């Protein structure tokens, strides 16, 4: 689960966490946006990097608890077609 604001300044923590998950051999990665208060293109780029690494190992990355605004941003960037988005889209 992601928490708080994930931007150009804090995205390194996400990269580090993804690296640990991959090193643990996990191939099914579910990223919850339920506690995210802000994310930008740095977060999206990190998720794309994570997806590439996971797909290479035969797995997949799923985005869950995506709110209406986050879905809009995913659509604007075309990433809604790249990621599997599961669960009901939250109103806010």
């Amino acid at each position, binding site marked *: 689960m992601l928490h708080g*604001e994930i*931007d*150009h*300044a804090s995205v390194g923590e996400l990269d580090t966490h993804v690296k640990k998950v991959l090193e643990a051999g996990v191939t099914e990665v579910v990223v919850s946006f339920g506690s995210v208060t*802000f994310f*930008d*293109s*740095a977060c*999206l*780029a990190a998720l794309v990097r994570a997806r590439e690494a996971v797909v290479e190992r035969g797995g997949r990355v799923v985005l869950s608890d995506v709110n209406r*605004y986050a879905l*809009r*941003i995913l659509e*604007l*960037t075309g990433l809604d077609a790249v990621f599997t988005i599961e669960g009901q889209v939250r109103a*806010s």
Partner: protein
Amino acid sequence: MRGGEARQGTATEPVAHRTNGHDGVRANGRTWRTDPVSRVELRLDAAVENLPLLRLVAGDLAMRRDHDIDTISDVQMAVDEAAAALLDVIVGADTLCCRFEAGPDVVRVSLEAWSAAAVGPDQNSLGWRLLTALVDSVRVSVTAAAGGGHRVCVEFARTPAGSEAP
């Protein structure tokens, strides 16, 4: 309107007044601004750690002008992406200058920094694509700075959803 309130001393009738280029009302010996546009200028360290501060200011100004929640969120993300794109290319700069103007019909943001390199933001990046999708107009300029180097500037304007672009 703050100028219409009675204060200690002798109250005077408000009189329309214009000073320093802004609309105002003259009352009780001073001019009260009624300009519907809020302006803020910030000079801060050119570092990504300051992106939350820029988002905070942009969001607050847009909120004060009663913009809808999507416009507020878009302005916050746009200023984040514009500043990040600028910070990514400037060389040798330590200060970022940011000007915000929020009125009822449009929010304008200008971000500027000195750079040793005459290079503007990467307009093929994911962040730039997002920026241009979120706002009505984006302008980039790279000009020679007095004393050497260059001024790299990114400006954007965002109107509320459903309104005409400026």
